């Protein structure tokens, strides 16, 4: 059995893990990052193809009744495949509450407090608002559609440098224009002394026997209090660490903790629970004759603009997208309303729909502040299964939002296309089915273990030195693409950990002390 020891073990190399790796390595900690997926050289390993064999090398999905959770496994995590749109969560996202009236976000964490960390993340990711002249045709046509419905739009900010518009963003940018964590966080982490191992899967986290040293700030006095059993390239590996940061994503981090329950016997009931799907509702229309052509196959895949028209009234943002043919065809049957040809989903009708797709079809989708309604169960064989509680509240939200999106099409004279989502075998789901890569909350932050899995610093209740720093910790839907919030929160957690374990004062604006920090703030170094 190979055994490694390290000060800090970071599990996962996406937005959350990369930030922790860099900041802790810069602070002088011995940092080991393990990544379940393969090494990815950017941009050399990316390909302009829709071959599922390539896509499935990195993209995973966890399918349950009514829900499909999509995520990436590979060095850099989702940063290789995201759509680069870089939005701060709206203020109202931080004010969401449980049905019992408890605020979802911990006290002191709101948009204003997060802005300093958003700035840091935006600087690292070279985020800039897209100039109007670079907004792709589909974005401009979306703007026209929205304004015809009396809605404003804004140019969105992106993490892109030198986009050439080849439209394969979600397969990985072969032009190297997409900003990923590889050169912004991971390479600097390596230069600061971190070690990264890919093709290394964490199987279980086990606390070592002995004093757990809760509240201890001196890293030298902290023992190697966690042992993480791993499989690396087919070889068993044990890693002993003083601090462990889980950053495997909403699915990965919760899955690891659930599989470790046998050893983490004080793991609270919120692990694997409270997952938000960011209120994803998708629609499609065919443009009226007096609209200019859109274009699904040129320009960046998230085409430049977003509408906040309904954010205050309904808690939703609205934007458009440009799925490539493999997504359009494998995801759903697309049937224009009033389609009379039979069959409607293959044959001449389907070819006609796909021939309209490039220039006359325009998807619009909403993201919204929906309550957490998904949970993960770990079966005996280790498989994770998501369950989506389709309660009346979500159904009403879904139906109302879809009606709104369809009304936007109709007001402009566009024809609605019914989206009938398919399972993996080509049969249509009979009920609401949500596919999302925006899931958050499976190990959510909270002020107490009654309401969440980790505290405001990302530390697991009852397990000192065990942290969650990825989308799993984000306690709510955000109504915008979540990566920037995940990254900003990871920067915030990293700042706390550096300050706590090196006794340094914060450089950035301080958050209110957690109970742990407050009780030790006057302790001698």
């Amino acid at each position, binding site marked *: 059995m190979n055994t490694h020891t390290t000060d800090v073990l970071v599990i996962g190399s996406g937005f959350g893990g990369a930030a922790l790796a860099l900041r802790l390595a810069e602070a002088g900690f011995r940092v080991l990052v393990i990544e379940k997926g393969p090494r990815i050289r950017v941009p050399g390993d990316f390909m302009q193809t829709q071959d599922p064999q390539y896509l499935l090398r990195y993209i995973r999905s966890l399918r349950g009744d009514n829900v499909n959770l999509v995520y990436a496994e590979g060095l850099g995590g989702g940063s290789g495949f995201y759509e680069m749109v870089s*939005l701060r969560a709206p203020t109202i996202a931080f004010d969401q509450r449980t049905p019992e009236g408890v605020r979802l976000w911990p006290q002191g964490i709101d948009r204003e407090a997060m802005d300093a960390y958003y700035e840091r993340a935006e600087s690292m990711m070279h985020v800039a608002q897209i100039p109007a002249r670079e907004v792709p045709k589909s974005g401009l046509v979306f703007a026209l559609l929205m304004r015809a419905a009396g809605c404003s739009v804004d140019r969105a900010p992106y993490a892109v440098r030198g986009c050439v518009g080849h439209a394969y963003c979600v397969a990985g940018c072969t032009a190297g224009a997409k900003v990923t964590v590889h050169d912004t966080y991971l390479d600097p982490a390596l230069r600061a002394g971190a070690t990264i191992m890919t093709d290394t899967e964490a199987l279980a986290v086990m606390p070592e026997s002995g004093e757990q040293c809760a509240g201890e700030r001196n890293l030298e006095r902290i023992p190697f209090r966690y042992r993480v059993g791993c499989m690396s390239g087919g070889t068993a590996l044990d890693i002993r660490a003083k601090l462990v940061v889980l950053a495997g994503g909403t699915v990965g981090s919760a899955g690891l903790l659930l599989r470790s329950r046998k050893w983490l016997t004080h793991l609270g009931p919120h692990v694997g629970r409270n997952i938000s799907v960011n209120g994803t509702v998708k629609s499609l229309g065919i443009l009226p004759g007096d609209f200019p052509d859109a274009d699904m196959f040129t*320009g960046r895949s998230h085409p430049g603009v977003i509408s906040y028209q309904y954010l205050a009234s309904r808690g939703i943002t609205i934007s458009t997208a440009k799925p490539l043919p493999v997504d359009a065809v494998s995801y759903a049957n697309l049937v224009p309303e009033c389609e009379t040809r039979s069959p409607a989903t293959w044959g001449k009708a389907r*070819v006609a729909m*796909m021939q309209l797709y490039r220039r006359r079809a325009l998807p619009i989708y909403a993201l919204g502040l929906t309550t957490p309604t998904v949970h993960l169960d770990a079966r005996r064989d280790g498989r994770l299964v998501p369950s989506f509680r389709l309660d009346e509240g979500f159904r009403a939200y879904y139906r109302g939002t879809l009606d709104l999106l369809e009304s936007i099409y109709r007001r402009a004279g566009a024809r609605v296309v019914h989206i009938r989502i398919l399972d993996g*075998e080509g049969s249509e789901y009979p009920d609401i089915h949500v596919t999302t890569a925006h899931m958050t909350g499976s190990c959510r932050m909270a002020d107490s273990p009654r309401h969440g899995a980790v505290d405001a610093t990302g530390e697991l209740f009852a397990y000192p030195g065990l942290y969650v720093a990825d989308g799993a910790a984000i306690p709510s839907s955000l109504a915008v693409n979540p990566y920037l919030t995940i990254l900003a929160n990871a920067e915030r957690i990293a700042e706390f950990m550096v300050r706590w374990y090196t006794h340094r004062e914060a450089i950035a604006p301080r958050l209110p002390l957690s109970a742990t920090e407050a009780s030790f703030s006057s302790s001698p170094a």
Partner: protein
Amino acid sequence: MDLHSTSSPAGLRARLEALRGGGGKLRAASFTPQSVLSAVRMLLYLYPSQYRRDPDLQDRVLRAFVVTVIPGADPAEPDLVRMYADTHYPFYPYTGYLVYALERRGKRPGGFAGLTPEERTLAVQGALAADDTTSRLLKGAILMAQVSYFAGIYHPERGCPLIEFPGRNAGFTPEEISLPDAAAYIGDGTTADGNPP
């Protein structure tokens, strides 16, 4: 599977493996007698072996199937039906049964491929309306045809000309990506930097 292969140990092992692997399909199928019968036939290869073993027959029937599902696809395209034999996808063990199910509906000399396009469409619709097992098989076959063809998965450099999908590219000019006077489409916006309030 013809009756002669029943007694072959290798054949029996293969059939048992197919049955285990296809157990999910059996469980997922509705348990009408016809559906179960179709599933058993499919998984244990209980249909004439030429549908599984004759590559020319398979090629002829499957090409006719794909151009029925995707009118306008070139029937002579070399990789038109490649996905049905591609071992990277889970469909290939059932391809023989697909050919059998289609050929049964070609009730004249020339079989399924000898039908007119309208007759082939009706034949496919008939298979979709048959028992649950056959219906699911056909839906999967249609999905595979559409994904393979429209996404150009075997020809990423070419894409799919039928739907103007260009495939692999070196990027596009600003004029190709955007429209003149783009700012006029967007208007003033409501935020200073594009972020929500």
